[in-house]
């Protein structure tokens, strides 16, 4: 386990492997600074987990990456500085997000949700194949393809949110609290899905409070608290550390 350092871990990955590099990121909500200068690194094909309790600044970090929240500092995606880009430009460059609270379009049908997810996809045949792929993976979504997405259960909505994000065929998938508020059985399903995605080579930044499950999947993890990264390391290193439990439970 390594103590938090302002600079990224230079020894861990060569420059070429880096997909997303964040340096000295400060995130603001109005006048309030929610994240105080964090640095992290997501390598191609890896699942990186961002852990921490409520209010640690995890979602703020995701919002800064997508450009929704005001932020200062450097965000490099595939060796290009994107911190000045618009939200739409960042998405177009290959970032997709399944946001906290799922935020599916409940007034649209399931099929329409998926279609919107592929809004930037020009190839109609490809789009059709992707939709078929997700419908075969989640038969429940296929059965209800023409129903309003608001009628789905929480777990189904989460699957739809992930599928919608993947319809864009992104280079990196940002998953914000995919297990929040779901029954244990559904949580396992969701993490199985994330595992499958990782095995297929998807680069994932996974934000979670469910540290046990997240660490099973993650190649490397960062622990956030009160807007700072307080620890980082491989899943094994971090799993064994007392700091993780202390931060997540408040019990020192």
């Amino acid at each position, binding site marked *: 386990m390594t103590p938090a350092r302002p600079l990224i871990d230079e020894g861990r990955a060569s420059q070429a492997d880096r997909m997303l590099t964040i340096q000295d990121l400060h995130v603001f909500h109005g006048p309030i600074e929610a994240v105080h200068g964090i640095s992290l690194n997501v390598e191609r094909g890896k699942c990186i987990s961002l852990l921490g309790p409520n209010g640690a600044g995890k979602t703020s970090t995701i919002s800064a990456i997508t450009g929704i929240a005001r932020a200062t500092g450097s965000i490099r995606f595939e060796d290009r500085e994107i911190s000045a880009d618009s939200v739409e430009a960042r998405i177009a460059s290959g970032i997709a997000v399944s946001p906290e609270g799922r935020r599916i379009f409940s007034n649209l049908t399931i099929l329409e949700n998926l279609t919107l997810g592929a809004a*930037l996809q020009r190839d109609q045949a490809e789009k059709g194949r992707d939709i078929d792929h997700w419908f075969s993976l989640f038969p429940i979504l296929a059965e209800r393809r023409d129903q309003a997405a608001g009628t789905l259960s929480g777990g189904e909505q989460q699957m739809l949110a992930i599928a919608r994000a993947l319809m*864009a065929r992104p280079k990196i998938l940002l998953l914000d609290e995919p297990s929040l508020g779901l029954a244990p059985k559904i949580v396992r399903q969701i993490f199985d899905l994330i595992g499958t995605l990782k095995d297929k080579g998807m680069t994932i930044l996974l934000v979670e409070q469910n540290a046990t499950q997240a660490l099973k999947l993650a190649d490397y993890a960062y622990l956030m608290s009160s807007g700072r990264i307080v620890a980082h390391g491989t899943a094994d290193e971090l799993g064994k550390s007392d700091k993780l439990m202390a931060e997540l439970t408040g019990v020192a």
Partner: protein
Amino acid sequence: MEYVIQQGLNALSFGAEYALLALGLAIVFSIMGLVNFAHGEIIAVGGYTMVAFAALAIGNPVIVMAGAVIAAMLASLTLERVAFRPVRKADPTTGLLTAFGVSIVLQNVFLMFVSPRPIAVTSLYFLDWPIEIAGIRLASLQVFETLTTIVVIVALMLFLRRTVLGLAVRAASLDFEMVRLTGIKANRVFAMAFLISGLLAGLACIFIMARRGSVDPHLGFDPVLKAFVACVVGGFGSLPGAVLGGFLLGAVEVAMLVMLPQSLGGMTDAFVFMIVALILIWRPDGILSPAIEKGDKL
């Protein structure tokens, strides 16, 4: 019997005009929470375009009508770009005041640079002639208006269901930020909503002008006021609600015109609004108000 059918058709054509305008207000409101009170001035822009064509001695009705519709669409797009885009992220009150401001500025532009008095436009009279089918006497204009509205509603429905940008407009009424997170440019969605709104205003302008035969700076005020009421009755922000509200208002208005005794003829609007008030007591949010977001399902 003929009388009832005739009045029914009257109600349909009144309702069609309100529905066209109400849809234009509702589509902008649904995505940006803004009641565009400058909608009436967009109708007036269409009317003055017809005057300009007359001045240029262009009488071809197709060119005049297409010109008015295109002018209304461009005016609507321009307002979005110049007036509403800068206040997009501001408080809803700011947007409302901006809309009033734009409306007043445009009315004064018409007053000062064109004329405060009505200007006759005769190029569209040809649209209105009496027809008689099976003993029922109709004005052709009413038939055109009703049919146009039906075609527009169907086309709009197809657009909103079958195209990505249409889906985005619907999704944006719920969660605009999430629409941006799918990579669709926010500016395109706003521009499309205002373009549609302008198209609807332009079409309504043709019928209003064909009936009135003249344009003045306040041309759009009354129709848009009625359209606003139609939106409120139908449920603000709901597109089906706007259509329903429009036709309902048309029906109530015709019913009052027909049923009120001659001596109360001047009070038609008072009775119409009384019925509107009763509907709002029954359904305070409008008949088809969008379901209130009850939070995320966890």
